[in-house]
């Protein structure tokens, strides 16, 4: 028994000692605003986190170079969550407690956004997710926002497009069973498509990371659909299209905003001709805002931005736009944000929250953003067709 008590003591001591090893708090900062960014920089979805980080940093650096907000620069602190939800919560906790951030940007995966959101909500720190599409994320609290549209909306738009514009009634679905975005989109599309009188002849799954889809595609071929819905990410979609053509499947494919990447056609080559997908943005858009974003990104990172980078860019923009309004309307509150954590700053953050909630027609590179009462972005879904290896604008569907 003596040993057990000793041990408990030892354990607690060890833990507290370890805790003291951690870097201690935060001095009052001079003339800068600290914003936290969390994402999956390592782990199974490392590419998503990297794209998001790139888009965010590009925007903030451009803003700082242009003088910041009334002379105040923005400092971003980026933390990795290893693609795990509990790490997302820990990363956000560290950003809020140790770094004293006044707002948080992240995450891509809805599961990780949902892990981090309660912490932000409880601390009264606004959080903007650039690309989480599960409707439940923003339901976690009024400090939680998103810059993209949600799965139910996109699913309905896809169903409408398939049924009305393309006049199809029989669809086979090939979704990614390990990816919550894909599963969600599949669910909502199926619901909407059936309501419009269509039939799902097959709903087959693959796993993200798979290389080979011939088994599933062979099965789909046997069911004779009119088109195939592939609500997954471009990393697999290109391969799926190629293998489908190799197997002799000629029907067109339809997809969501997960297709958005310049690598898509690089992999698929001709296999995606005649197919369509949803986008918020595409490089061919002659809007100078978009063109500047694309060229800046390419210059800095050596590759074209994907949809996630664009949304991250916009989320950062939404935040700073609200901060700018705060600076103009309530300079005292703005100054409070730069100071230590106290009641004044808490009130200032609440004001910031209100301003973010009132975002209307923010000109993002991924479309104009207006937030609705549920703090989700209301944007048009742009349908892009692929012809001869090129993108072609087909339709913009307003909600």
């Amino acid at each position, binding site marked *: 028994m003596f040993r057990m008590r000793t*041990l408990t003591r030892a354990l607690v001591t060890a833990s507290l000692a370890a805790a003291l090893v951690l870097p201690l708090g935060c001095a009052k900062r001079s003339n800068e605003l600290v914003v936290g960014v969390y994402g999956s920089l390592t782990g199974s979805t490392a590419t998503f986190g990297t794209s998001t980080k790139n888009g965010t940093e590009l925007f903030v650096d451009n803003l700082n170079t242009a003088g910041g907000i009334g002379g105040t620069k923005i400092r971003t602190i980026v933390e990795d969550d290893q693609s795990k939800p509990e790490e997302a919560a820990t990363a956000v906790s560290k950003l809020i407690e140790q770094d004293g951030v006044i707002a948080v940007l992240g995450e891509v995966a*809805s599961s990780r956004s949902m892990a981090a959101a309660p912490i932000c909500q409880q601390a009264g720190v606004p959080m903007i997710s650039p690309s989480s599409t599960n409707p439940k994320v923003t339901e976690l609290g009024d400090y939680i926002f998103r810059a993209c549209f949600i799965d139910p909306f996109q699913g309905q738009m896809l169903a409408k497009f398939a049924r009305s514009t393309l006049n199809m009634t029989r669809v086979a679905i090939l979704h990614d069973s*390990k990816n919550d975005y894909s599963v969600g989109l599949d669910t909502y599309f199926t619901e909407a498509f059936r309501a419009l009188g269509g039939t799902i002849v097959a709903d087959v799954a693959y796993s993200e990371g798979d290389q080979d889809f011939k088994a599933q595609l062979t099965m789909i071929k046997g069911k004779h659909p009119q088109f195939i819905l592939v609500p997954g990410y471009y990393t697999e979609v290109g391969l799926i299209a190629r293998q489908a053509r190799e197997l002799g499947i000629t029907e067109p494919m339809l997809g969501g905003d997960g297709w958005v990447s310049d690598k898509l056609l690089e992999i698929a080559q001709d296999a995606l001709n005649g197919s369509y997908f949803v986008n918020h943005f595409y490089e061919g858009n002659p809007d100078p805002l978009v063109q500047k974003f694309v060229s800046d990104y390419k210059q800095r990172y050596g590759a074209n931005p994907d949809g996630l980078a664009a949304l991250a860019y916009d989320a950062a923009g939404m935040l700073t736009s609200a901060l700018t309004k705060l600076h103009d309307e309530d300079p005292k509150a703005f100054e409070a944000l730069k100071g230590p954590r106290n009641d004044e700053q808490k009130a200032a953050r609440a004001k910031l929250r209100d301003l973010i909630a009132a975002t209307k027609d923010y000109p993002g590179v991924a479309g104009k953003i207006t937030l609705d009462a549920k703090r989700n972005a209301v944007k048009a879904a742009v349908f892009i067709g692929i012809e001869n290896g090129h993108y072609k604008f087909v339709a913009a569907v307003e909600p």
Partner: protein
Amino acid sequence: MVRRLLIGAAVLFGLWVLDRGLTAGLNPYFYRILVLSGLNVMLALSLNLINGVTGQFSIGHAGFMAVGAYTSAAFTVYAAPRLAGGTPEGLLAALLFIPAIAIGGAAAAIAGFLVGLPSMRLRGDYLAIVTLGFGEIIRVAILNIDAVGGARGFAGIPQLTTFTWVGAGAVITYVVIRNLLRSYHGRALLAIREDEIAAEALGIPTTRYKVTAFVISAFFAGAAGALFSHYTYLHTNSFTFMKSIEVIVMVVLGGMGSLTGSILGATLLTALPEALRFASADRLIIYSALLIVLMIARPQGILGQREISFSRMFGRFRNPAPEARGTGVK
């Protein structure tokens, strides 16, 4: 018996008081790290029972954790409201947490039984692959159960875990496993580790003991999983092969076969990565290099098979205490 219960109650009360103090005084981030450390301590101790004490190869520990996490979460979300006639609050919720954890542990124990059974016919390396496979199969199976959220994760689990629960869990795990080690049962496991054929020849029913080790180990991993699922958003991404590896590194670093070593390893490897966040991109490279270097240079880890013992450290000045643990080997 009564004395033991009183001591147990006193420890529990002490933890509760400590928890109140920590919640008030410590910022939520540090508190979180403490809770996560406690969970990892439970995982490391339970894995040590299989890998360190019994000498078996188990690299699918995250699977047991997952089973415990999801089963207990399902209980809390689906069964508890029915038992309580509505969503339970406060004390009632806490009381219902206990059966949730127990059920999580029990389900994991059943899984441990199923995984341990093939150990009868499997040589070490093959058993390792089977446990790896088990971990993956469990994860994929859970991904397909819509009732617990599938790929989108399990939302809406009441966040009941606090440091009190985790501290109690860690203490209980330690006490049980330590007492197990001191018993005849524990000696049998150590014998199996040293030379399984000799043990069998001496009349020890090796399969029965090996399976029991798996069952007990899985139970505590499941309990840790249950506590985990009531502390964060539940998603299978938390239970990948990488998690199993992280627990292995904790056990190996602390010393396979040393219980206090596992506690040390678990605490270090939960707190240090937080302190070294600036190097987080290289974290996995460091872990893997650490594994290789440890195995080559110091396979016994920090403590080897010894335990941290204050009485021995001070006793050395009085009379040298004889080494009471199992036969040292390497």
